[in-house]
């Protein structure tokens, strides 16, 4: 956590650049809602404001979750790149303490940066959030973070075992979640086989729960239907992720794969 904080402080200029990049790319997606009417003509019941909010939630939630995932999985990729992986893995620290500590920063960093982008977007589109249950949305997102950390830890096995290609392989995992989880569209538009995968994706639960809280003002009792499965997935996936990472570490030590620097 301290190491990442030092890096953020030292390269704060990049943080500013990334903030504007994320904001502008988010805005360009949300403008699809503004332009939909001009592109397709007016249809009865078409609600620009609703679609705008729908896409903003997708953009922000996806940014938050993918950031957590990437930062968690990239921890090992960075160590591979810098050559510090052996130093870290021979330290007398339990693997779960090491990995959970590393993910703590990704959680806080993603939360703060996504919140800042969310505020900027809300101001830009002059959104009316008076009916939104923002606290409920926050609870859904935090519950979903656990699962994404677990999946991120599993994904970090790839750069542990494959220094050259592992980091790129984690991007495939992220892209797959983007496709199937209904980030910018409801999962009902997907082919049946994709929908079957989408319903077990924690990202789908987070998006649907957040949209219910913000767009429909759903209360905690209704949101529980999203929070409970997310917590269950998280509580089950986290120890599995740690166990798999530990097994991969043992395999790397047996086969001498820790030595190679990507």
């Amino acid at each position, binding site marked *: 956590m*301290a*190491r990442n904080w*030092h*890096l953020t402080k*030292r*390269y704060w200029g990049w943080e500013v650049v990334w903030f504007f990049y994320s904001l502008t790319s988010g805005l360009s997606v949300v403008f699809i809602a503004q332009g939909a009417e001009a592109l397709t003509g007016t249809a009865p019941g078409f609600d620009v404001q609703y679609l705008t909010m729908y896409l903003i939630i997708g953009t922000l939630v996806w940014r938050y979750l993918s950031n957590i995932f990437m930062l968690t999985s990239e921890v090992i990729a*960075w160590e591979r790149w*810098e*050559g*510090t992986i*052996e*130093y*870290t*893995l*021979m*330290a*007398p*620290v*339990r693997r779960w303490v*090491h990995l959970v500590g590393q993910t703590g920063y990704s959680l806080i960093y993603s939360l703060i940066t996504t919140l800042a982008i969310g505020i900027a977007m809300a101001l830009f589109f002059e959104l009316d959030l008076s009916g939104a249950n923002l606290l409920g949305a926050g609870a859904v997102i935090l519950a979903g973070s656990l699962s994404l950390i677990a999946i991120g830890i599993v994904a970090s096995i790839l750069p542990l075992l494959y220094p050259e290609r592992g980091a790129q392989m984690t991007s495939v995992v992220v892209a797959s979640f983007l496709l199937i989880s209904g980030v910018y569209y409801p999962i009902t538009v997907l082919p049946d086989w994709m929908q079957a995968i989408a319903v077990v994706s924690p990202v789908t639960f987070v998006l649907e729960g957040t949209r219910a809280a913000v767009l429909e003002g759903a209360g905690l009792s209704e949101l529980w239907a999203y929070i409970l499965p997310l917590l269950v997935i998280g509580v089950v996936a986290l120890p599995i992720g740690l166990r798999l990472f530990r097994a991969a570490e*043992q395999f790397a*030590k*047996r086969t*001498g794969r*820790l*030595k190679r620097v990507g």
Partner: protein
Amino acid sequence: MSTRHRPAEHPALDVENISKFFHLPQPPLWKRLLGARVELPEPGELPAVVEGEKAPVAAVDHVSFRIERGEIFGVLGPNGSGKSTLIRLISTLLTADRGNAKIFGVDIRADEMGAKQMISRVSVDAAFFKKLSPMENLLYGARLYGVTGAEAKVKAYEILARLGLKRPTYTEPMEEMSRGMQQKVAIARAFLTSPILLLLDEPTTGLDPRSKREVRAFIEELRDSHDATILITTHDMEEADLLCDRVAVIHEGRLVATDSPAALKRSIASNGEQPTLEDVFMRLTGEKLVDHDAIEAARS
């Protein structure tokens, strides 16, 4: 052996018959699933090369030795002789195929965490987060080893000053430092966590003569002031002669001799000649420790 050694209940390091092989022929997957294991070769033997497969390698081949507390023990050998693999095995970064090691009586397999608490390793390539400063890297390392931030900061200032680093460089990114400086910081990082067994894997390789002298002096000082035991690998004979109480000569993964530098030299002395450690190595292995001709050829 130096008179600095004190008797202890357990040796600082007891390596027994440790071996690591790579690219050994594997049984078919179905047999492995049924519990079949790779057949490990006997000392000095390797299975035949299977066509289309990588040649089997005995990186460390049935190596045994013992290091007493407070000793500086050198492992002398050319590149590819198994020195780094041996250090990795002791550091728990590689799992041995056969044999084991005990650090102050703690079995590195049975109690990996206990062993890790007593050791630190400096590798030939000083690995750091290069965008971070020496101070930030030291603090990160210290936190990994459970040293509190405040305590680590005080110790880091002391050690960095002792190494002769100028104060402004404490906060500059490591990537802007010379390799010699980086290596000094690597040794500082190792000592920040007060290990009682320090594993130094060619710590002076690539350093200029002055930096080498400074690093050696630092190692000796730390041994004396921190009650640390040091295992150092090197292919620098002068370094081994000056620093080590005892040296082991490793060749193709096997230890071929272990004794004090003086005793090793005496063992091959004849007709009043004063042999060097390089002479010892050549006599024992039939090879030069450092192939100066090859280095010259590579330079030209």
